């Protein structure tokens, strides 16, 4: 197998820094397992040296099991870089908002241009990418990563080691996060941060691999029983391990302990603080032992005997000591506001969370009351988790899987399930970028190809930017008589005659037709087409023994037109569509602290935007500080749009209802990203793609129960059956947006439901359809 290359600005065994250590460990451990591993790095010795000096010789050199290639760094202007960097660091954290470049014009580019760069390395990547199986780039914020990754994007895995800091908001960082093939996260918290910053488009290519912890290898040594005069086996104590200073919140813990002692004067539980740092803590407080810096051996001894480990810090990106404590079966307590540690504890169930001083004080009491078995039970859960994410063997297994290093992975799953037919083509009236039906045809084509069928898409009308995906239909050219044909029927098209006469096996997929009377006033031409579509349906029925609708609701139309037992093939809605940047102006406008209530759908009477405006007005009068965003095409002169506008004016909501119109995907992306609630009053949805999209964006959905909506939502969202009681609806909306518990429950339902619309989820239904065609 071709080698895997790790790309990192600096490389060496004894380099300080999380990413450098990680690269050393992972590359060496993979090499030890017999994989061909190379490291592509610079001649610069370390982060602390001058980035434009070549301390080490360029060229390839063997080091252990690795081949290390070093490249010369470019000359750079350090002053310019420092200027840009200090500008970046001066930006207050509250000004950092996802999707908005916080660097004012030019400084961001300067930061990248004068970073550590190596043209030689870039050139190497460009010319030799075919020699490698995959590239792992880490960490995210250096020039060689930002500029190097795009050259080999389709083979690249990014291990960003992402922090919530100003650099993470650089457009260049978004560029590599979106462009790379896969993302390796160190922790669940990091994954969550990436989701917040870049949306759901990158969700499915990310994988939490974890980071191994080495120190527990020490346990074979005999551990001391006493540390600094403290008898470890006799005393019950809570341990706080790590840097002792303000940023690590040690003072909070001391204060909490004092509170605990005040309310429990005879409590036996002690607090032991250990780690580097100048300041002394709790000198005069009885029961607190500040040991300062301790040896590794003492540290292990302290960890193995403690009642629990408390980690009060609020800004940890990955806390090694938590994993260590878990390896000793000890429970931990962490700060609930620290994303990385809190998520780990939450996921593991190996401890507890606290925020305020009172809560921490209570924790001391809770821990002191717990018996050894209870403590062990928590610790055991933590240990399970640590084994998953902090034991090198498991972590390296995961790297192997993600990077596709098992030779069996590559050849899996091609052409096994093909039956009878050799080619199955699809015929669709129109084909355009971003259109749900067009996306569906592409996904079906890919699924068919995966199974070994030849498959192409033919269409009557094609968007010029999509010519590489589909072919123009010309009197059936390219569709032989014996091939299978899937015909997508929506509005009346000139294809009906052709498909009726097609002699080969065929099936029909029906996408909802809006009842023509609903659009006749607004767009008479469209109404005629829709009518034609419905008429055609009954002509098609006798010719298509195999048919499917997007939803059960749509199947009813089919049955009424004479189709026999149509099946359901839901529209595939995958989040990858949103792996595009959000529109920055819209992001800026919508992240102003107001509640954003969103509905996506054409402005037509049957989607009931008028009801939504009324409901919104009610919500506004009760709570204020909110905005309604109506995304969806409309014609300026159309009466429905005009009446909506008038309604908004009469309600005095002119500044608070945004008619966004038909928008680009980038703007729609911004709307979804910033929305706090998706609220539908619609009375006619044949399937409801936006509902599923909202679920992917983790927006709680509140929807009127009508047409196909309950079917599409499944266990996601909250349905209502009565449009009249607006006050009650407004409160429900409020709870969905602002009650953390209700919101979390709704979102977890939606997380489960949305998976039903992934390509792999609709595969069985597609298979059934294809089997039907084969007879």
């Amino acid at each position, binding site marked *: 197998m071709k080698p895997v290359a790790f790309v990192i600005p600096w490389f060496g065994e004894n380099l300080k820094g999380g990413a450098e250590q990680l690269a050393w460990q992972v590359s060496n451990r993979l090499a030890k397992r017999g994989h061909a591993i190379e490291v592509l790095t610079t001649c610069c010795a370390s982060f602390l040296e001058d980035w434009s000096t070549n301390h080490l010789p360029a060229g390839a050199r063997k080091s252990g099991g690795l081949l290390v290639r070093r490249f010369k760094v470019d000359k750079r202007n350090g002053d310019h870089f420092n200027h840009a960097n200090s500008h970046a660091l001066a930006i207050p954290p509250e000004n950092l908002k996802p999707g908005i470049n916080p660097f004012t014009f030019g400084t961001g580019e300067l930061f990248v241009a004068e970073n550590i760069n190596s043209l030689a390395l870039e050139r190497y990547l460009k010319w030799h990418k075919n020699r490698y199986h995959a590239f792992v780039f880490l960490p995210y914020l250096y020039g060689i990563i930002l500029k190097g990754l795009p050259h080999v994007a389709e083979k690249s895995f990014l291990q960003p080691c992402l922090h919530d800091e100003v650099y993470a908001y650089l457009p260049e960082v978004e560029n590599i996060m979106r462009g790379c093939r896969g993302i390796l996260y160190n922790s669940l918290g990091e994954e969550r941060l990436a989701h917040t910053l870049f949306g759901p488009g990158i969700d499915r290519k990310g994988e939490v691999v974890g980071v191994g912890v080495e120190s527990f290898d020490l346990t074979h040594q005999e551990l001391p029983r006493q540390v600094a005069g403290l008898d470890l086996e006799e005393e019950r104590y809570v341990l706080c391990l790590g840097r002792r200073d303000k940023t690590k919140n040690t003072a909070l813990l001391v204060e909490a302990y004092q509170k605990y002692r005040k309310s429990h004067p005879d409590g036996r539980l002690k607090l032991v603080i250990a780690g580097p740092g100048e300041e002394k803590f709790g000198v005069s407080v009885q029961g607190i032992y500040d040991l300062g810096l301790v040896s590794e051996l003492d540290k292990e001894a302290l960890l193995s005997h403690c009642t629990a480990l408390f980690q009060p810090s609020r800004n940890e990106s990955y806390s090694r000591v938590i994993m260590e404590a878990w390896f000793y079966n000890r429970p931990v307590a962490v700060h609930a506001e620290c994303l990385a540690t809190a998520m780990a504890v939450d996921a593991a169930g190996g401890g507890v969370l606290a925020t305020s001083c009172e809560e921490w004080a209570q924790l001391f009491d809770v821990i002191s009351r717990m018996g050894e078995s209870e403590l062990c039970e928590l610790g055991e859960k933590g240990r399970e988790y640590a084994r998953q994410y902090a034991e090198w063997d498991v972590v390296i297994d995961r790297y192997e899987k993600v990077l596709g290093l098992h030779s069996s992975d590559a050849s899996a799953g091609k052409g096994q399930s093909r039956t009878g037919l050799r080619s199955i083509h699809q015929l669709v009236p129109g084909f355009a970028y971003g259109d749900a039906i067009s996306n569906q045809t592409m996904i079906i084509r890919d699924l068919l190809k995966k199974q070994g069928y030849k498959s192409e898409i033919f269409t009557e009308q094609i968007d010029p930017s999509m010519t590489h995906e589909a072919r123009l239909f010309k009197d059936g050219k390219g569709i032989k008589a014996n091939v299978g044909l899937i015909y997508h029927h929506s509005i009346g098209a000139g294809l009906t005659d052709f498909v009726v006469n097609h002699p080969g096996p065929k099936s029909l997929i029906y996408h909802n037709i809006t009842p023509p009377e609903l659009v006749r006033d607004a767009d008479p031409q469209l109404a005629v087409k829709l009518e034609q579509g419905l008429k055609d349906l009954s002509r098609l029925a006798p010719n298509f023994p195999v048919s499917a609708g997007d939803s059960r609701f749509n199947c009813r139309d089919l049955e009424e037109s004479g189709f026999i037992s149509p099946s359901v093939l839901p529209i595939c809605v995958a989040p990858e569509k949103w792996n595009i940047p959000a529109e920055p102006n819209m992001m800026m406008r919508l992240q102003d602290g107001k509640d954003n209530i969103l509905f996506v759908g054409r402005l037509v009477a049957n989607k009931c935007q008028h009801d939504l405006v009324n409901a919104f007005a009610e919500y506004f009068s009760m709570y204020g*500080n909110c*905005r309604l965003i109506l995304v969806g095409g409309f014609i300026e002169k159309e009466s429905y749009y005009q009446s909506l506008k008038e309604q908004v004016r009469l309600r005095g909501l002119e*500044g608070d209802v945004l008619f966004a119109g038909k928008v680009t995907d980038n703007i729609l992306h911004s709307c979804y990203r910033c929305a706090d609630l998706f609220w539908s009053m619609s009375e006619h949805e044949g399937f409801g793609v936006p509902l599923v999209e909202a679920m992917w964006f983790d927006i709680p959905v509140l929807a009127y129960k009508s047409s196909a909506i309950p079917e599409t939502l499944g266990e996601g969202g909250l349905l209502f059956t009565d449009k009249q009681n607006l006050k*009650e609806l407004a409160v*429900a909306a409020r709870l969905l947006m602002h009650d953390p518990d*209700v919101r979390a429950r709704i979102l*977890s339902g939606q997380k489960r439901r949305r998976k039903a619309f992934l390509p792999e989820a609709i595969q069985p239904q597609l298979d059934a359809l294809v089997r039907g065609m084969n007879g």
Partner: protein
Amino acid sequence: MLETKNPEIDIAQLLERIGLELKRQQKSVAGGQNRVVPEELAINDPYSWGQLSSTLNVAEQNVNAGAEVTSMLHYRGIIRKIARFLGKVTVFLGRVITIPQRNFNSALLHCFRITLDGIRDMNRQTALFEQQVSRRMEQMERLLREKAALVDYLKTGLVVQERRTSILLEELRRQVVEDNGSPESSGHRLTDLDILDPLYLAFENQFRGTREEIRDRLLEYLPLIRATGAGASGREILDIGCGRGEWLGIMQDEGLSARGLDLNHVLVQECRERGFEVVENDALSYLRSLPDNSLGAITSFHLIEHLGFNERIALFDESVRVLKPGGIALFETPNPRNLLVGSCNFWADPTHLRPLYPETHQFLMEYRGFCRVELLFLHPHEGEQRLPEDEAPQLAARLNEVFSCARDYTVLGYKA
């Protein structure tokens, strides 16, 4: 009315929470005033900004036009290979033009982005300026209003001073006449009350309420007066203590014949300027000067609390005497049943003597010869000033009864 298939959601519990929240909402009516952030500074139609920016994105995507050959997937087989080859040749030859063109494109795009940023900043600043200007304008208007009020006050003062000067002159003249041996003295005497007249006017302006407010309140009496036929010729209405003449104004507008009576020279002057007929005199001496059965109605608003007991009895007696049969007399005064009025507000006017107990008042009028004597309780606190009655209804109702009930009452009676 809510439904979900999500097993984690307990609908009954959710509905209960919604009910609780609704109750809480009803209590705090202030929800509607939450409108905090004004919608976007300056950028009036930010959506078109978004479009502008996405148009630029499109331009950006095409900035490198002519650098690569398209994949030509619509051709197949050998044709595609030839097409690709020809394409590459074209692209290579075209570089003479496309390279400077691409440079030009990206330079222009760069310029656009900078300009766009600049315009956006400028827009934001304009909005800030607009806000500042409108704030300043408001300040100016407020200042102007204050100045206008001051001018009015000075004008009144001037009138008073003129009058005093003329009295002094008169006095002087009288003195001269006396010195010359003439026994008659007919001039006006300067009294303490005269000095207080403008003060009382200023006080009324500050404490009694605006003309419009008072007018609105007084309109309630119109049907009562109309029912007795007062105001027709021969059934004139007399308003004792007519003050600034709000009631006389109503009478004039309604075409009813009415006359005012007041002791305060400044107020009388003001009423006369407005074209009302007003007598400057004290109530009792004027009533005594009128013949029996000569008036259709006697009204008096917030006067009797300035009178002593004997004067009040005399007022009732005289009123009965001068009214025509069927005539009405009504007297409005602060209501001491309202605890706030009785214990505090009543004493805002330093010339008030004492609060009058409604039923005593009613009794006195009946006793002095009026018939069908009634009490009307008026002007209770309404809306937000009342204690909401939904939490502890009994307590709130009780408290409202003493603190928010009618602030004034009127006792009225008819001559048989």
